[in-house]
């Protein structure tokens, strides 16, 4: 790829990095409006991160070097992904972005977070980790399957930057059952992976219901800031993956400014729509009982499997 | 003497031997049993003589003599001596009971005839059914060993098996090479002596010659 496109790819990655807190803020704001609350401004997440970044750090005496290392690992894994996933322009900066690597880097993130949860030696961390792990057993395969289904649909292999272009080229003929099923399964995965309602409630610290927050419990100051930022970034990444891998129409295929503007508009619109959906879900549904979560996850797994199979049956 | 008579004689002797082993199955007295055995051996010797006469190979005479010496005279003596030495009570005690063992031996005799029936054609011998008869005697002897429990009775059963065998040897194949026959006789003698010795040992260690007591070695 040429220098221009690489510069653009770099720029869009930076854009993603920059907008991640904003996306979270937007979702929170929408939610508040749906619940007839005023709610904090959309820039609130930036302020929170800044505050946390300024604060001093307190670490548990039972925690080791790993505990201090984990925030860096999580944050940088997500940032790396930001360079692997296209948003505005159908090229990525990271050399040879690969779908399988992408999924496994998400696993890395989860793994690190779980270990961090176990570090404190308190009941909460362990509980959060164990629940996270229970969910991941079903999340990971469906994530893998749904992404591979799209890859197989395009026939372009596991190269990320190829997929949007190929899908666009296929036009509406791509909108077959495979894509629909895969997208549906991916949507469920998104909600579960990012710990939103009905799987988990990001805004509570009630011991019995929380999953992700329980693992963050021991972090503070900059460590917490990094963790929080990483999870915001993860949400954004998932959303932009839906926008570019499953419904890429509108993405800029060439580096011409017009296309790029169109792409920017398109991704913004998609993000807003997704944010609306998530906010709606969180407003109308209540959190599930823990042991009913697997049922929903199994549904997403089966959906993704069907997506794959439908590719060969139909 | 011409072969007709020889044939009849051999047949008669053979049948007599079978009869004797049936009788010894039927008897319940040790002394009687040994007497029957020596009588059977006598018939064997006589038959050997006759077939030697008829076929004219003379070394069967020697065989007849040896049989007479060993089986009619020495072995019965030795058995009686052993019995006297280890004072066995006179009854033959059986596992199956006399009628049962008689029926069984009748079945075995039929089996012997049935088995040897296709072989009859393959001899130009003086007699056709001697093979069947010898097989029957062997079977009956073995049956006696299976159904009688005293050490001495088992020895007699073994000896009767050998008689049946020699019946076959004489009648079917005019005896064997002399050396072999003598060796066989030697072995028989030795076997009986050794069996006697061990019967004596059994009696000494178990105070009985009832081999039904020998049941220590098993899984």
């Amino acid at each position, binding site marked *: 790829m040429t220098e221009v496109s690489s510069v653009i790819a770099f720029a869009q990655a930076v854009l993603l990095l920059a907008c991640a807190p904003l996306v979270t803020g937007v979702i929170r704001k929408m939610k508040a409006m749906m619940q007839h609350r005023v709610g904090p401004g959309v820039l609130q997440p930036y302020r929170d991160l800044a505050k946390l970044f300024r604060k001093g750090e307190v670490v548990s005496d039972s925690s080791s070097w790993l505990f201090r290392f984990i925030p860096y690992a999580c944050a940088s894994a997500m940032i790396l992904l930001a360079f692997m996933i296209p948003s505005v322009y159908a090229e990525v900066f990271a050399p040879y972005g690969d779908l*399988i*690597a992408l999924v496994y880097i998400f696993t890395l993130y989860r793994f690190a977070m779980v270990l961090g949860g*176990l570090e404190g030696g308190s009941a909460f*961390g362990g509980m959060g980790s164990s629940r996270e792990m229970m969910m991941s057993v079903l999340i990971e*395969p469906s994530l893998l399957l749904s992404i591979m289904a799209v890859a*197989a649909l395009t026939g372009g292999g596991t190269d990320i930057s190829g997929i949007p272009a190929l899908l666009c080229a296929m036009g509406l003929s791509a909108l077959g059952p495979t894509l629909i099923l895969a997208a549906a399964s991916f949507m469920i995965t998104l909600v579960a992976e990012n710990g939103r309602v009905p799987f988990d409630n990001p805004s509570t610290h009630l011991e019995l219901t929380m999953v992700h927050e329980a693992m963050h419990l021991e972090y503070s100051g900059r460590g917490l800031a990094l963790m929080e930022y990483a999870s915001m970034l993860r949400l954004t990444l998932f959303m932009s993956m839906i926008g570019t891998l499953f419904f890429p129409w509108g993405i800029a295929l060439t580096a011409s400014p017009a296309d790029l503007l169109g792409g920017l508009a398109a991704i913004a619109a998609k993000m807003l729509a997704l944010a609306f959906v998530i906010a709606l879900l969180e407003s109308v549904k209540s959190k599930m009982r823990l042991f009913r979560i697997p049922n929903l996850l199994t549904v997403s797994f089966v959906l993704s499997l069907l997506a794959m199979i439908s590719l060969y049956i139909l | 003497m011409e072969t007709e008579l020889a044939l009849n004689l051999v047949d008669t002797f053979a049948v007599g031997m079978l009869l004797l082993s049936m009788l010894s199955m039927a008897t319940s007295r040790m002394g009687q049993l040994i007497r029957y055995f020596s009588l059977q051996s006598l018939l064997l010797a006589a038959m050997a003589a006759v077939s030697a006469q008829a076929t004219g190979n003379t070394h069967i005479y020697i065989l007849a003599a040896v049989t007479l010496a060993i089986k009619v005279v020495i072995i019965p003596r030795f058995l009686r001596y052993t019995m006297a030495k280890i004072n066995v009570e006179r009854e033959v005690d059986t596992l199956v009971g006399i009628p049962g063992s008689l029926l069984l031996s009748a079945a075995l005799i039929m*089996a012997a005839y049935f088995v040897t029936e296709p072989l009859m054609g393959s001899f130009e011998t003086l007699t056709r059914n001697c093979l069947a008869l010898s097989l029957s005697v062997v079977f009956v002897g073995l049956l006696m060993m299976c*159904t009688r429990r005293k050490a001495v009775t088992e020895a007699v059963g073994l000896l009767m098996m050998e008689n049946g065998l020699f019946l076959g040897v004489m009648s079917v194949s005019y005896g064997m090479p002399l050396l072999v026959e003598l060796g066989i006789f030697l072995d028989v003698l030795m076997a009986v002596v050794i069996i006697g010795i061990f019967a004596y040992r059994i009696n000494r260690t178990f105070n009985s010659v009832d081999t039904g007591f020998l049941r220590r070695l098993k899984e």
Partner: protein
Amino acid sequence: MMLFAPAFLGAAACVFPRAPRGLPLALCAVSCIAGVAAFPMFLLYGDISAVLPMPSVWGFYGILVDRPSAIMMSVSSAVFLMTVIHMRGSGASARGPAYTGLVNLLFAACTLAMCADNVLLLLVSWEAVSVCTFLMASGGGSGEAARWRFLVITHFGGLMIVAAFLSMYLAAGTPVLSEWSGLSSVLGPAGSVAAAALLFLGFGTKLGLVPFHAWMPDLYAGAPTHTTVLLTTVCSNAAVLLLIKGLFGFIGDGPEVFGLSFMLVALSCATALWGALESLIQREPKRILAYSSMENMALVMLCVSLAMMFGSSGSPELSVLPLTAAFLHTVNHSLFKSLMLMAVGTAEESTGETSIERMGGLALRLRILSVTALAATASLAAIPPFNGFASEWLMLQSMVEADGLAAGISFILPFGVAVLGICGAMAAVSYARLYGFMFLGRPRSPGAESPAPVSRWTLAPMAVLAAACLAVGLLALPVCDQISAAAASIAGLPPGTSYREHLSGAFEPLALFALGGVILIAVAVVSRIRRRPAVTAGTWDCGTPLDSGMQYSSAGFSQPLVRVFHPLYGDLTETREDGADGGKTYKVVFSEPFVKDLFVPLGRAVMLAARAVGRIQTGNIQSYLAYILIVLVSVLMAVRLF
């Protein structure tokens, strides 16, 4: 040939128990170095071969080091070397000359099995491997019962292997293995299917194929650590190499084994899932690792059977990718599994505890150990950029490759991906659990509170192995070039064929993870700016002081998953009874269903049959004579009638 002199010298040295302490180990190390040199030597001189002048019953003993065996030998010898050094460190040489001698023998046997060029030599050395491992496994305790099971099961496998090789020898007509190829044409459809199945199952008994895995957990838990290490790495390498050679080199993947390959795929998937499931609930680290070996080897066998499927469905050139994946994963497995086992063994030795319920907090106390263990865990859980990820990535690639095949087979794609995904996730769970409860949190027992210091000899080989794990993960592609050449040479493909043209999409782990590294450094630097020193305080305890009992237990950790997959586990008997002080105790007992419902009843049945037959030995002479009479009469009757 000079290369292997030390190997057999070392093997011989063990025979003299009077030899000074440590001499056998030293000799073994020498021979290991010689073994490591195998691959470089191969690159320099090409095939190395040698023949012993003394004839055996089947031809002359000969060895041939071609590319695949050279690679496997080098890797295995490297692992072996590390193990020997670790042995020296952890004072296992105190086990006495017999043990170290057996170590030498095992090395010789494994090396010979990998490079044997004569069918008898191969069979002999393979069985010798089983015997050595059996004799080395005498750990006492729970292992004893498992040893017999191990020996019997592996002997069963050995018989299957013997049968397979005999039939192949029959077809080939020559005992020289290097002259065997494409025997399926001679064996005929049925014959080649039978031979392939026998090979697969036979080696499967060593690799823990369901249901032959019954020996694994107990043996791993009972045997000395180094035995387990060698068993699960070096022996498995030999098994995989021989399996692939046998299936693709000797028999050849013709269309006749197509149906079989489906069954083998199914069997391997079942094994992988079972291993992943069972590893979730084990309490002893070594048991967890036993099941994880089972799972990893099942993935290897899955790749092998996939390759069979591709080859038999008429596109042999595709089979190079799965074969490469299989080889790569075997290599990786031998690296990270040996590392993990050594770490666990060292931890057990220094804490004196064998249950993860009684460990914890070691990361604070044994820092270097925890770092190496983390590398091993990450590789086990296929976390990028470690080598476990590289091989799983290659496996997924070979799955994607099925896309290009006829519709019948491309079905494999979704299922295979699903199995891989679930196995990977479960593996991640159980290794997170393993590492988290061994090294993190607060110590759960006095032993873990103050572990004994670990010697440098012990740490050095582990550090080397950790580095190797990372290196292979980063340099996956160049490594795969070598391996795929080997795979192609076995599968009889033209030497030019590389796995690369079958990769879908382009992926350069080195570049990607370099970028990742840059980012990591950047993040670290940024967050160091004007940073206040961290304050250390107690864990947040909601105001009630934490005791070790309030820590999340490993059983509790896996409880949600057990709830999800409840029906698949054996009977989990939950007993609650009142203690002396009226307190409630609650425990969950898992029993391996295959042992409980298959092997134990089998043994009982055999015992009953034996007793039934045993009755004929009544001890009564009359009945013995009666047997003779009956047999005689009945046989005579039979002859007369028929």
